[in-house]
């Protein structure tokens, strides 16, 4: 019994991550109705596991549970994007301040390392190679995460991470690559981190997020 349970938990977690990625990276489109029977076959897990995972994702805001009528991928809207962007700025600024104040040499190492990977992918993208767009987005996320990782609050990091992923979905839906501008902003943020200049980092972050929101909206959310 316990062996079976462990196995199904492992499968569930794996499947949870897959569905989550599929929503964030737009393979499951905003507003798409999620038919349990089909999901069961697509992801190769039991009906009750699928229900469990969709409920979990609905508490993260990525899916809407619609009473008896089932589930659908959360729709996108300009209002929601703006709300997510200000939440991200609120949480990330606060965390940046604490992280810059508390971060040790290990933290600096993580930040430098994460930026190195991001910068490499940014150069590739600038050269026109979009084959690793998903990896690039992952490194983008990792870099922002490392910057705040010394903030000392797991509650803050978890809330930020959920908001960030909801925000990220919008950039994928509209496929946003702002090229050199965003790459420069990332480099400024790295410099600010090493100089422990939180206030300047926050103002760069604000520009960074605003620029991204405007770019996303100018492309239209339906794409």
């Amino acid at each position, binding site marked *: 019994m*316990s062996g079976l349970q462990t196995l199904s*938990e492992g499968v569930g977690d794996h499947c949870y991550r897959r569905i989550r990625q599929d929503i964030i990276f737009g393979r499951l489109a905003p507003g798409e109705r999620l038919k349990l029977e089909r999901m069961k076959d697509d992801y190769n897990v039991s009906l*009750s596991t699928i229900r*469990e995972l969709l*409920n979990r994702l609905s508490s993260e805001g990525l899916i809407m549970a*619609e009473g008896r009528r089932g589930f659908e991928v959360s729709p996108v809207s300009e209002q929601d994007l703006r*709300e997510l962007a200000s939440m991200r700025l609120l949480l990330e600024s606060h965390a940046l301040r604490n992280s810059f104040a508390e971060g040790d040499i290990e933290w600096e190492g993580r930040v430098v390392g994460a930026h190195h990977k991001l910068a490499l992918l940014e150069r590739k993208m600038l050269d026109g190679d979009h084959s690793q767009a998903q990896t690039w987005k992952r490194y983008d996320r990792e870099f922002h995460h490392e910057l705040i990782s010394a903030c000392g*609050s797991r509650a803050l990091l978890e809330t930020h991470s959920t908001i960030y992923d909801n925000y990220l979905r919008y950039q994928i839906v509209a496929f946003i690559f702002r090229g050199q501008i965003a790459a420069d902003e990332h480099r400024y943020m790295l410099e600010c981190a090493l100089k422990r200049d939180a206030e300047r980092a926050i103002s760069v972050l604000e520009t960074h997020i605003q620029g991204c929101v405007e770019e996303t909206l100018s492309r239209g959310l339906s794409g």
Partner: protein
Amino acid sequence: MVYPADQGPKMSSAGTNQRAGDRTYRTLRSDILMGRLLPGQKLRLDELRKSYGASVSTLRELLSRLSSERLVLAEGQKGFEVAPVSISDLREIAELRMLLEVNALKDSIANGDLEWESRVLASHHKLAAIEAKRLAGDKDDTESWKRYDWQFHQALISACGSKRLMDAHAAVFDKYLRYQMLALSDRGEIAVREHEQLLACALNRDADAAVQVLRKHVAGGVAHAIANGTIPPDNRGCT
């Protein structure tokens, strides 16, 4: 006691759905928040099945949902337990609550219309009534009191204009509430006066003063809960 379907913590998405699973979810969640299920308590599926009248597979589903809210810990093959508590966790939660609530309060006081004023007044009226009862020595209905406290704070920020902010705040407020229930924290007249001040600041549209009162209110609540001695300092091996 369980919250009625349209009231109390985290009711925003309940809708009209009366599925047994949702009801059990709300009951379980409320039992954790109200301290009827204690921090660290093992949650055995066969026992829960009897007391909540739900199937094992439904329960597994609900517990994993609660574990993604960090109210329950899933421990691999060892099963589930109620999330533990610690002073350092309480401080994190209080800090996050402040960050979100201060921000929302400013926006709400700036944007709130007459409907908002009316909601704030109504929710304070109910809170004040139960506070007066408690000050007079009748402390039976702790859960209603905490529910009205929750509703007052929520009404204050309800004109902030961001559903994402309200949702995140509701989630963190519920965790804060759990600590208050565990420590049986009641600051009596001090908290009552702070609520009155918050109401006055809101109606006068004095956001800065409201924020000051709120900061004092939460800092006082945390200090009081810690002084009570029921919450262990830290139970975390790592961060």
